[in-house]
């Protein structure tokens, strides 16, 4: 089968619309992942052992099961309990929660990375905990976290096609719809691949620049 530019041009507007949804989903999901990840990281430092242990197993359960199945669970099961969410909302929540278990490790490593002496120094300056976090700890903890967090953003971007299977018309589903109506997989699917490469390779380059600039912490994934 040969490449047909007619199909390629015809599918392009739909794909661009899909790309916008894909990027929206990535941004919303990453915001959830960052905020929730920070919350998990802080809660995992809690003094209560039962809290730490239960959080450990909850995050491990989320990390060790496939996103696709988690998407199905939220999408198909919640309506049984009378909770009706839009497919897009379901998708970004699942993606965000899934990756918050990864970003929490970044936050934890970043905070651990600040040496104990800094806390003592803040104390000796008579800073209260708020001042200590704001002026001493976070300014040192955040820059090394930026590269790994940026990498997770790219990873999330590449996981968004899974939302297609809970009916979100993002880039991948837009192509699939076209393929199904015109019986041509070659052009739409190739273009989807090209779009992914076009977005993620430059993003990966930016992430690499960030790594050079900030000297990232090493996180065991």
């Amino acid at each position: 089968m040969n490449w047909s530019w007619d199909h390629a041009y015809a599918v392009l507007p739909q794909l661009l619309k899909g790309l916008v949804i894909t990027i929206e989903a990535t941004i919303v999901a990453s915001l959830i992942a960052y905020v929730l990840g920070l919350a998990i990281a802080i809660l995992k430092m809690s003094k209560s052992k039962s809290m730490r242990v239960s959080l450990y197993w909850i995050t491990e359960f989320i990390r060790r099961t496939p996103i696709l199945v988690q998407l199905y669970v939220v999408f198909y099961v919640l309506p049984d309990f009378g909770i009706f969410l839009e497919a897009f909302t379901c998708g970004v929540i699942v993606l965000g929660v899934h990756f918050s278990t990864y970003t929490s490790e970044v936050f934890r490593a970043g905070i651990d990375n600040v040496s104990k002496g800094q806390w003592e120094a803040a104390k000796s300056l008579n800073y209260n905990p708020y001042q200590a976090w704001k002026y001493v700890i976070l300014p040192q903890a955040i820059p090394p976290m930026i590269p790994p967090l940026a990498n997770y953003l790219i990873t999330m971007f590449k996981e968004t096609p899974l939302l297609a299977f809970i009916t979100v018309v993002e880039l991948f589903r837009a192509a699939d719809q076209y393929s199904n109506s015109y019986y041509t997989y070659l052009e739409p699917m190739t273009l989807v691949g090209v779009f992914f490469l076009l977005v993620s390779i430059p993003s990966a380059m930016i992430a690499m620049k960030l790594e050079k600039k900030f000297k990232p912490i090493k996180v065991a994934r």
Partner: protein
Amino acid sequence: MNEVLAFYPMLIDGTIVTIQLTVLGAIVALVISFIVGLSRISPYKSIRVAAIIYLEFFRGSSALVQMFFIYFVLPMWGIYFDAITAGVIACGCNVGAYGSEAVRGAVLAVDKDQHEASKALNYSNYEKYRYVIIPQAIPIMIPTFGNLLIELMKLTAVCSLITITDLTFVAQIIRVQTALTLEPFLVILVVYFIIASVLVKIVDLIAKKFSKGRNVMTAGDK
């Protein structure tokens, strides 16, 4: 719940398919990791460039898209794979790209004086990597490989979308046949969790075996 468990022969078959995909995918990924990872440090520029193109291609686009490309688009060029093969190739090639970075990083992490020592022993380039560098690099790779193995296992769920009857596919069948939603997915989530936990344990044991008597750093260390 009993209605779902009545489907246990299917669930067991699905579990076996998922484990098969994981094991075969892991073998493909491991081979590719070493080939691509070592190509990245080859003295020949053409080989290095080819490895980078492979890496960027498979890391840059989504695994799902790669899988659909292999299963639905390649047949249009006359290249046919059955679903399992397509799934294994897609999972293996995708995870192999990430694994190659682990191989490269670990090989580069071996101290410079080890290279000098091999030179002092008059080892050829092949002997140097075979007997000195790679044996020391492997313990460094293992924790990363362990994490990638879990990612690979999770990726196999996507294979259900190209008609492979793995656990996820079985859960969908049960959902349609029984009109239950929570139970089938709950069952397979637990099965996935158990498989992953067993894999984590196995990798821990391998890591212990390889680091015996050696003072090695792990990927988490500085």
